[in-house]
């Protein structure tokens, strides 16, 4: 079975919006509360490789994209999650499931102030130790 169908079947109504963006690029959005189980399904059951995660500060909220690569066909599945509460953003950590997500969650935490619940070692990765608390360099509020 095609990987797209396996994902659609396995996740069912957890998928809110599906977008076949271009050849080998697929985006779909899920609810914030489902992210742990969705990632678990993609990584453990389907064996997709976690490529990285991206956070974007949008007017609607913080948008997380988890990029999973299916290397047999070269397809890249990006799971989109919107975190609406910008004042106190939180999402479940996926670093508990596999170690490869530890650094990127630490980076997003310091750059966007997105709190990853249950991260084993949430501390600064790139920013200096004396960087001011609560100042998130990649948030939009810093711009005129």
């Amino acid at each position, binding site marked *: 079975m095609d990987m797209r169908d396996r994902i659609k079947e396995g996740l069912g109504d957890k998928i809110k919006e599906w977008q076949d963006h271009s050849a080998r690029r697929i985006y779909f959005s899920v609810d914030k509360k489902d992210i742990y189980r969705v990632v678990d399904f993609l990584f453990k059951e389907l064996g997709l490789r976690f490529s990285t995660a991206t956070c974007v500060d949008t007017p609607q909220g913080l948008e997380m*994209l988890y990029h999973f690569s299916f290397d047999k066909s070269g397809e890249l599945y990006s799971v989109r999650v919107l975190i609406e509460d910008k004042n106190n953003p939180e999402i479940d950590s996926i670093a508990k499931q*596999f170690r490869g997500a530890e650094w*990127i969650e630490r980076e997003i935490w310091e750059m966007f102030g997105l709190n990853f619940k249950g991260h084993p070692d949430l501390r600064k990765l790139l920013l200096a130790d004396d960087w001011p608390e609560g100042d998130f360099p990649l948030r939009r509020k810093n711009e005129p």
Partner: protein
Amino acid sequence: MSHKVIVPIGPYHPLQEEPEFFQLYVEGEKVVDIDIVIGYNHRGIEKLSETRHYDQVAFLVERICGICSSSHPYAFVLAVENLFGGEANIVPERALYIRTIIDELQRIHSHLLWLGLAGHFIGYNTIWMWAWKYREPVLDCFEMVTGNRNNYAMFKVGGVRRDLKDEDIPILKKAMDELNPLIEMLRGAISDDPIIKMRLKGAGTLTKDQAIDWCVVGPTARASGVNIDIRRDEPYGAFLLNTVDWNVVLEKDGDIYAKTMVRILEMQDSINIIKQCLNKIPKGEIDANVKDIPVGEGIGRVEAPRGECFHYIKSDGTNRPVRHKIRSPSYMNVASDKVAAVGGTISDATLTLAAVDPCYCCTERVAVIKKSDNKKIMNGWDLVKLCQEKTDKIKAEMLNE
């Protein structure tokens, strides 16, 4: 009672001369834990990129790293071209070939650089001098084709900036023909040397399960038997046209020896790929003259010498990206040192940390501290010495037998 000692390595990695900080926790000779601190080289390029227009960003990301200075701009232009539906939709065929030639030349020079440093590390300074000597003609090729030995300024959205001159093609072919036997010789020197084998086999092993758990990429993953290579999985450049014949190099042991062999065999593959490209390169345009960038999201991936290089672009239709996410291969690979170096000896640690070919420009330092009283007992150079002394010891033992 166990006696833990902390070994800090830094402020420069003794191998790569870049800022990084490793804190090794050791019990006697054995490494029991490791803490990696990066960020000394963080330049805020993702943020900077949002203030530059698309033409400038290609130059900016080229400066992320001087070694893979074609992978980053390549992945970036692929991400932007993804907004147009993909590289194949807009880029002229000749430009695809030129892109691949530059990208593969870069792989050869990067792997040779690593091989030389690894040789120096285990006390084989001859390998170091040979490898770096053979790297020179590759850099000369770059200078001839692009005008620069590093930071080639070749990539732009929709094509390449400079054409490959007809008179350069035979010179490039000759350089590749001359390089092949030299790399074959290096391969022989490493695979036939019993001391190097003893030194590298079984050291710094990353198993296949660990490689998957840490999501490592590139030669680090392929040496552990994870069969991934973006050039085959999601072809770009000349690989798109199915005219290039090559194979993905795969090893299964996951130790430093496997990582070395993967890189050497990949260089030979790259030479082959370049030669085929030079034979098949068509005449024609090299640039699609892209004017407007569409609204949307694009992701570009390139197999850099160290693995998958990932760029994400979000465009709102203006001449600047709204968001530009960069994930270099070392970002995933360096983190895996946490398992690869643990369990090994201190004298292997520096080599293990170096075996992933860390690049901190892309993604940062080492010292030995006694865990019982947190006292520094060694610095990076002492560790290199330790590493080289171990090879000398093996050598002396073999001579005595």
